[in-house]
């Protein structure tokens, strides 16, 4: 319908031009030879005209036809005498010999001559035929079109279902216990692939959390066994014989000490596991690292002095990151404690904040024995302790915790040889970490 309407408008414009031209032609004929010349011309043309789609009518003032292939002057044509090309309804009865079986709405033009005769010119739109044929064709092809549409729909739907199936299949395998499975990603780079990438990211995270949790339980079992065993043995042995009150008190004091160590270890393990899993819901606020470092420096100055160490603090630029002040303080404390512990008297400790975009470095350097480069990775792992003196306190979780806190703040712990000594660096991104928008950006 729309097709018809829009074509019709097009037709009108073209036809208007044709009709006007033909009318001008005929009018010239009249001016040259009068009515008789005009009617001759029309009569000559009328047979051919029908095939070409032209309708002529030359009529007397009273309406009686003089020449042409229309049998009667239609009343509707009167309005054309005012001028212009317009479409009018022509009764099929008057269009003898034409293929029109019904009334036709055709562009037409009319003209009145000085002696009262009138000329009507109408154009049977050829395109009208084309459109008729087209609509006939459409009617025939409709079933075929519908069939193909259905086929396409089914195919598309089936391919979507298949993609979704691969995803749910992978999910099922993962749930069945195969943690390493991932959703396959095709090379089409479409929405399904984006979804698959997101899912895989999620699975990475889940695998990490689960592995972390397993590590926690392993480590808890391992590292808490010693103090528990000590406590038990101590109690058992103490009870073997009658003891002095003093002995009992001493046993109890040592047990308290062991219990406290266990608590500390326990808390640290939990904290590290939670940091790994990203479940610590600490509120992140802007923290000026330089300010924090200056405070820490002030806090540690006396004890560094007591230990006979040179303690230097440099933190001049404002260096703000999004973070949690207490956690960051804990990280610095752990690093400083290590430096204090391992640097012999006469040595130096440097605590500084250096801002060089795009990173901010928080550095603790000492001039102690340092850590061999081969061990840089291992020391971050839980419970690794390098000191040969087995008497020093500590549970080997110091650096592990620092590492976890660094990662929580979207940063990293970097260990370097200070030559001599150790340089421990917390490297953060300068500025507020950006929040990537969801979807389509699940980078693997």
């Amino acid at each position, binding site marked *: 319908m729309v097709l018809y309407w829009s074509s019709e408008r097009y037709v009108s414009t073209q036809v208007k031009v044709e009709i006007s031209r033909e009318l001008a032609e005929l009018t010239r004929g009249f001016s040259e030879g009068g009515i008789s010349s005009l009617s001759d011309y029309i009569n000559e043309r009328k047979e051919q005209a029908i095939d070409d789609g032209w309708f002529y009518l030359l009529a007397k003032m009273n309406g009686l036809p003089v020449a042409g292939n229309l049998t009667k002057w239609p009343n509707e044509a009167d309005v054309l005498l005012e001028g212009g090309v317009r479409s009018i309804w022509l009764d099929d009865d008057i269009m003898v010999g034409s293929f029109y079986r019904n009334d036709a709405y055709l562009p037409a033009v009319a003209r009145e001559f000085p002696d009262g005769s009138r000329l009507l010119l109408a154009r049977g739109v050829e395109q009208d035929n084309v459109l008729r044929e087209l609509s006939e064709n459409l009617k025939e092809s409709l079933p075929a079109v519908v069939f193909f549409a259905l086929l396409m729909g089914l195919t598309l739907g089936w391919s979507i279902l298949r993609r979704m199936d691969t995803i749910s299949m992978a999910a099922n395998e993962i749930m069945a216990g195969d943690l390493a499975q991932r959703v396959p990603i095709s090379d089409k780079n479409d929405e399904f692939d984006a979804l698959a990438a997101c899912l895989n990211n999620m699975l990475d995270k889940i695998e990490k959390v689960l592995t972390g949790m397993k590590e926690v339980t392993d480590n808890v079992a391992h590292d808490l066994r010693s103090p528990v065993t000590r406590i038990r043995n101590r109690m058992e042995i103490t009870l073997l014989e009658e003891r002095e009150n003093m002995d009992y008190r001493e046993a109890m004091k040592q047990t308290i000490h062991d*219990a*406290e160590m266990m*608590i*500390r270890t326990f*808390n640290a393990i939990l904290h590290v596991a939670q940091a790994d899993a990203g479940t*610590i*819901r*600490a*509120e992140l606020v802007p923290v000026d690292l330089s300010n924090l470092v200056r*405070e820490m420096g*002030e*806090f*540690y100055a*006396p*004890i560094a002095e*007591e230990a006979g160490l040179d303690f230097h603090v440099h933190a001049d630029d404002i260096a703000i990151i999004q973070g*949690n*002040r*207490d*956690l960051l*303080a*804990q990280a610095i*404390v752990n690093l400083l*404690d290590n430096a*204090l512990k391992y640097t012999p008297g006469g040595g130096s400790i440097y605590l500084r904040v250096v801002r060089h975009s795009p990173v901010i470095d928080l550095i603790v350097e000492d001039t102690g024995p340092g850590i061999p480069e081969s061990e840089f990775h291992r020391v971050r792992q839980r419970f690794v302790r390098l000191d040969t003196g087995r008497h020093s306190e500590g549970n080997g979780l110091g650096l592990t915790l620092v590492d976890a806190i660094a990662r929580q703040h979207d940063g990293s712990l970097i260990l370097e040889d200070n030559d001599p000594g150790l340089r421990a660096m917390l490297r953060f991104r300068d500025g507020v970490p950006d929040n990537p928008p969801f979807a389509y950006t699940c980078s693997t």
Partner: protein
Amino acid sequence: MHILLIEDDHDAAAYLKKGLVESGYSLDHSDNGDDGLHLAITSNYDALIVDRMLPGRDGLSVISMLRAGGNTTPVLVLSALGEVDDRVHGLKSGGDDYMVKPYAFSELLARLEVLMRRANPTHDLARLKIADLVMDLKTHNVTRSGQKIYLQPREFRLLEYFMRHQGQVVTRTMLLEKVWGYSFDPNTNVIDVHISRLRNKIDKGFGMPLIHTVRGVGYKFCEAS
């Protein structure tokens, strides 16, 4: 001193009761939030110890209901939830102090004492005094026996905290929290060194020591007995 303990773990409650009674307190105990709230409203206590996880009404709800009713009894919150946000949440609900389990009993005792003396109007004083030590909070002048003592800002704040908590046991954790504003687990030696510096300035050479070490617990600031 009359205390209400709202704790559903009966073993823990038994130990706490024993320790507190032996330290000179009298104790009432409730093992759920609703009864506890009722008791707190209808009786007069000097302090409340409330566990966060309770059957029925949870600890923080008890506290906020209490506060909503205008009750200003000091509350010490005990909790197994120790994350930073939990602490903030606990204090915002109306708690006055927050301790994470497992805690040291001596720590609990020290904090409880500080809580109950909170009604002490030292907040408005411009001058703090003990024995011959005088602290002017406006001018930041500190003198002992008439002699002027020069303190660094942090030492001043440390002394101020001691002065405001005269006669009470303060633990290293409390000092770290209130004077330095941190709540991490410190190498407690660091604090000891700060204390010894302060001692050098205000106790050494002045006859009576004011800063006393309480073994295994912390420090006490008072005239020597």
